[in-house]
């Protein structure tokens, strides 16, 4: 069923009794051309583009729980492409271009809202760094504007511009950045993939791999053996656990990142703001809740929940830039598991096992990358060669020294 104003009106007259499920619930077949492990945004996008762009429709997406139950449903919904390093800029800009056409392509309302993303700067040195990043973006054809203090104040009038320690001097603005409805992205890709013939198999956990003389032959799951000559892993947060089943050691730690939502209030902030002197970012959902987050808790975790010191740290940073936040009650918080790679950048590459492909290491930044990650991972699986915009995301870059260290801090698993 195609969604449109006409289908909506038709269903309204029938009491909305005629809507069909957006995707089937098939039992796993014994064999596919490609199996994608992980039914989050990245895995579903990969399956969709495998079918749509590469014509490979005998594809299964296997998901341990229900689709979108991991980080696809545990992020702060921000989309942006304000990256400065050569390996990143083109990739994230391709993702932004896909976001811009996503809803028409999928015939699904993902509530993509290009409301702008502002990174505030608080010192001369930080302004210089942001100007450099903005210039790098513009040289790649990405939009970026350096705002001075008055321009920033016009867009964000209620912040603490008189803060003696961290005065707001301006910001780097990407107007095409913004937010999208996170669950709808997973559902939209699932529906799109399903309509092209992809089997989405939920409640199906991978327990092992079939490997024969260095080549993957399939997977062992809680719902039986499924054979395929190509298997893609899109299980960020749990990549180390799954990769350990084939004996792979990865440059990765799993960390917990918390995010928060306030009570619903009238429209208050119409853009996405990041505080440059502490780690804090905030936007407002269409339901009215302020959605915000900050640093990792800072220790290895698979618990999908964090602790109070990180909550205090995030709220302190928020209060420093926006004292009015103290009058708003925060409603709930959650924790998601981050694949924290050792340079803060992702991996989309082959593995030493032939036919087994990796899409992982998304750190904090996986949501905005969802369309391009799916696009490039599908390209890698279908053609067995890296997509040009994802060519830098190699697994061996840590051994060869070709790190993509956007933050410039060296080998540690707590970068963006």
């Amino acid at each position, binding site marked *: 069923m195609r969604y449109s104003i006409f289908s909506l009106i038709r269903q309204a007259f029938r009491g909305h009794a005629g809507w069909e499920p957006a995707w089937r619930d098939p039992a796993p077949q014994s064999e596919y051309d490609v199996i994608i492990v992980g039914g989050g945004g990245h895995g579903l996008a990969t399956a969709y583009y495998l079918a749509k762009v590469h014509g490979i429709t005998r594809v299964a997406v296997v998901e341990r729980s229900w689709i979108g139950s991991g980080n696809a449903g545990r992020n702060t919904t921000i989309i942006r492409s304000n990256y400065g390093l050569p390996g990143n800029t083109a990739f994230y800009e391709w993702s932004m271009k896909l976001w811009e056409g996503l809803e028409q392509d999928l015939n699904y309302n993902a509530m993509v809202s290009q409301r702008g993303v502002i990174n505030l700067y608080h010192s001369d040195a930080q302004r210089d760094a942001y100007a450099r990043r903005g210039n790098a973006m513009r040289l790649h054809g990405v939009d970026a504007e350096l705002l001075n203090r008055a321009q920033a104040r016009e867009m964000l009038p209620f912040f603490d511009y008189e803060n003696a320690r961290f005065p707001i001097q301006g910001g780097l603005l990407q107007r095409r950045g913004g937010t999208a409805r996170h669950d709808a992205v997973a559902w939209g890709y699932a529906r799109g993939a399903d309509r092209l013939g992809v089997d989405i198999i939920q409640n199906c956990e991978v327990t092992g791999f079939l490997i024969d003389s260095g080549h993957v032959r399939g997977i062992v799951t809680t719902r039986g053996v499924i054979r395929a000559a190509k298997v893609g892993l899109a299980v960020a947060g*749990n990549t*180390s*656990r799954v990769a*350990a089943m084939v004996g792979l*050691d*990865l*440059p*990765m*730690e*799993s960390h917990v990142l918390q995010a928060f939502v306030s009570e619903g209030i009238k429209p208050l902030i119409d853009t996405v703001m990041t505080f440059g002197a502490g780690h804090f970012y905030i936007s407002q959902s269409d339901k009215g809740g302020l959605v915000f987050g900050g640093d990792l808790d*800072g*220790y*290895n*975790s*698979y*618990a999908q929940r964090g*602790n109070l*010191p990180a909550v*205090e740290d995030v709220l302190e940073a928020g209060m420093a830039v926006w004292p009015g936040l103290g009058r708003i009650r925060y409603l709930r918080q959650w924790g998601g598991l981050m694949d924290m790679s*050792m340079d803060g950048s992702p991996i989309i590459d082959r593995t030493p096992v032939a036919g087994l492909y990796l899409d992982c290491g998304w750190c904090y930044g996986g949501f905005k990358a969802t369309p391009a990650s799916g696009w490039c991972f599908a390209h890698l699986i279908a053609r067995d060669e890296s997509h040009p915009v994802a060519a830098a995301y190699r697994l061996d870059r*840590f*051994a060869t020294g070709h790190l993509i260290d956007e933050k410039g801090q060296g*080998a540690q*698993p707590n970068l963006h």
Partner: protein
Amino acid sequence: MRIDCPYCGERGSEEFSYLGDADTLMARPDADRPDAAAAFHAYVYLRDNPAGRHRELWYHGAGCHSWLVVTRDTRTHAITVVISAAAPRAAGGRG
């Protein structure tokens, strides 16, 4: 999370800084071994990253300034053993 420091007693985790996998980080490879490049790649970048029991280094910066080896379950955050890092550190060649 509360960490039972052997010198200071039980304290909130906000008094401590986290470094990572103790068994990897306390076994720095010998720079003269023939496979030193591969060994240092593993030492600097690769981690077991287990879901379950994890031995890890914490530094008590707001207390006694000692390095500790904490055994913690990464699925539940439950801490079972806390010892000083001095003895395992010496055994791992980082005396």
